[in-house]
């Protein structure tokens, strides 16, 4: 009995310690955004890497997602004679759920994995230690610009995803399957409310922070050479994907 309790206590204490470590990492890095030197150039470089360079994959996935939604939505709604509601269905699905979540998963796979590998290689090749010995805080120089860039880029990428997805749905629903263009857009205008857009925006900001936070943390504490970098990269992508889905549920339940 005492052995089991002891083991349980050990597990809980370790979890609390690890969680504290991860949270402190984030808070320290974010606090350094308000301390000089202000690294605007580094932040812009990261926005280019995380945001602009992810735009192609976002455009591709968004257009196909919108097209599939248009196709599935059309044949489902036709059974009830409600094809005119296609615009609402596509827009609400994208703005509330699919836009933020799929954009986040794409950014996690493209930019998150690259960030973990980059920071991890900087760790194992002692580049982070070199920064430290030059009195340059690696959290401020390497991690903080990436976190801020994630916060800036993710809502923009999500907005692009939503718009392109809606156009993909339009292409299939209106151009190919013959739904009225007016019905497609007017249904959308009537059914999409501010709370839907706010919810999607909040999700994208939270997901952006989660993905880059996990990616940087895993890279920053990489150990044991190339194998360690590989392990850290896998863990970063898997952890951030799970967190995105878990937080998606939490935020959705808050806005419902």
């Amino acid at each position, binding site marked *: 009995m005492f052995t089991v309790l002891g083991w349980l206590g050990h597990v809980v204490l370790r979890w609390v310690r690890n969680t504290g470590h991860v949270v402190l990492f984030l808070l320290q890095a974010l606090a350094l955004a308000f301390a000089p*030197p202000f690294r605007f150039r580094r932040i812009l470089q990261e926005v280019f890497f995380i945001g602009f360079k992810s735009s192609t994959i976002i455009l591709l996935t968004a257009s196909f997602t919108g097209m599939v939604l248009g196709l599935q939505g059309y044949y489902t709604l036709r059974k009830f004679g409600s094809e005119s509601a296609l615009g609402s269905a596509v827009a609400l699905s994208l703005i509330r759920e699919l836009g933020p979540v799929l954009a986040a998963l794409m950014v996690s796979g493209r930019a998150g994995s690259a960030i973990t590998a980059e920071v991890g*290689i900087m760790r194992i*090749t*002692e*580049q982070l*230690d*070199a920064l*430290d*010995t*030059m*009195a*340059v*805080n690696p959290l401020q120089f390497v991690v903080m610009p990436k976190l801020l860039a994630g916060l800036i880029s993710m809502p923009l990428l999500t907005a692009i995803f939503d718009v392109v997805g809606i156009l993909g749905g339009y292409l299939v629903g209106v151009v190919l399957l013959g739904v009225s263009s007016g019905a497609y857009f007017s249904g959308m205008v009537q059914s999409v409310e501010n709370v839907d857009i706010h919810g999607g925006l909040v999700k994208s900001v939270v997901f952006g922070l989660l993905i880059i936070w996990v990616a940087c943390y895993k890279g920053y504490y990489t150990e044991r050479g190339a194998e360690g970098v590989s392990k850290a990269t896998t863990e970063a992508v898997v952890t951030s994907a799970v967190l995105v889905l878990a937080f998606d549920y939490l935020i959705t339940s808050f806005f419902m």
Partner: protein
Amino acid sequence: MIKLINLVRTLDNQRVLNGVNLEIPTGKITVIIGKSGVGKSVLLKHIAGLIRPDSGSILIDGFDLTRASVREIQEFRKRLGVLFQGGALFDSLTVFENVAFPLREKTRLPEAEIQKRVRERLAQVNLPPEVENKYPDELSGGMKKRVALARALIQEPEILLFDEPVTGLDPPMTNTIFHLITKTHLETGYTGVVVSHDIPKVFEIADFVAMLHGGRIIASGTPEEIQRCPDPVVQSFLRGEVDFLEA
């Protein structure tokens, strides 16, 4: 003077440093020798303030590094240069940008002055101007070490730490790096701490030698004193004898 007092450090449940006591004289080159994996680099990282010991003190001209705040450590590091084992050059920056990095980060020097200083340092470590625009992955191992040395010297540090400066280099390049360490030391007078197991070459640059074994300094003195040291562990290491128990 750098004084290490009873340093203890455990890593991965292994006592790496087990009461290290050592005095490193100012303005001299001190070489720390010992077998691979004995904790030499860990000791060097303690002096750089990258690792805090479990107990013990590191006094640098009376300033206790182990009890210093983050800000005090940052101030101390303005007096410090480190040459890392693999060079630790930033792979996204060119040679010029790597060497200029500490000046751009820590000073407000005009670009012309930065250019002048970078070129002086590159010339000091015998690197031609053509390498300025190359990236680290376009350089040989020896060139990387020389660029890293130029970067470590750019802020004219009072203390310069060398972590295995010749590991992985061929004998002529080993001689070149040791020659550069001696030359730059004579020119700038820094306090050098070199971690190496390149015996007997490393004795040529050393004013003072200390041997780390079993988590402690088991012998220290001038190179001549170390070579005459009667300790069988020291003699076995100097002769390069195979450790059959370990093998």
